[in-house]
């Protein structure tokens, strides 16, 4: 039964990305900075499942200029149309 449940979960396309925690309309995601794009005022971060997120001037809690490639960040991300509401660098 346990194996069957695991198999059923593996078929669920809406399963949570690795390292994310459910918080209702948002979820918490751990990601790594993969690109700094100052010309477009954003920093791209990628989670363990390959999802990309953009940290922008409107993202609360983080100073984009202080981030560097390879740095780990924790983000609060909306479920629909993934959008980072706030982020914090992991020291």
């Amino acid at each position, binding site marked *: 039964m346990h194996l069957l449940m695991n198999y059923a979960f593996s078929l669920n396309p809406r399963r949570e990305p690795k390292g994310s925690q459910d918080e209702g309309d948002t979820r918490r995601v751990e990601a790594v900075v*993969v690109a700094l*794009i100052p010309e477009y005022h*954003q920093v*791209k971060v990628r989670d363990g*499942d390959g999802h990309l997120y*953009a940290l922008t*001037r409107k993202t609360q809690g983080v100073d984009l200029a202080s981030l560097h490639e390879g740095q780990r960040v924790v983000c609060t991300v909306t479920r629909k149309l*993934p959008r980072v509401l706030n982020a914090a660098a992991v020291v």
Partner: protein
Amino acid sequence: MAWPGTYVPNFSDWREGDIVLVHRTADAAGLAIQASQATSLSAVTRAGAICSHAAIYLGGGMVVDATRGAGVSAQSVWNYCQHRSIQVRRLSDPTIPMADIADISAMAQQHIGEPYSVIQVIISKLIPGTMPVLDALYCSTLVGLVVADATGVDLSSDPAHQPLHPGTLAAHPELADVLLEWRHL
């Protein structure tokens, strides 16, 4: 320019920041983009493979786009819709603030004059997940970066949407189609 007595698209239903997608093309680069998308590993990109170009609507019948030769520039959408079919799409999430949506067109205009490069097209097609090369913009790269800058939404978030091609935008599940009509002047 459209004359009285002719038909024009329903521009009044379009919104600043909408994504304008151009289908079918007669030039070699457009055909190469379509062929590449048709064989993409991404089912989303394959579904939109007929689309060869992406632009951002500014209002007043104008778009900003990145093209070979002109780089990032503003031009009339009339240049596209006279001879080719177009598709207009917008972010489907109603929780995104309208002020952020309005920022899309404003931020797109800030990049007018920046260059376009075929190299960006080749790199993005060969290496999925590649980050944009900023001195070498590609039409859908520009759209993705500007939408993210204005709204925080990364349209290439899902690995199935990487790299972000015009075809990916044409079939992107998080974008909704705007009903297009031709109206008599």
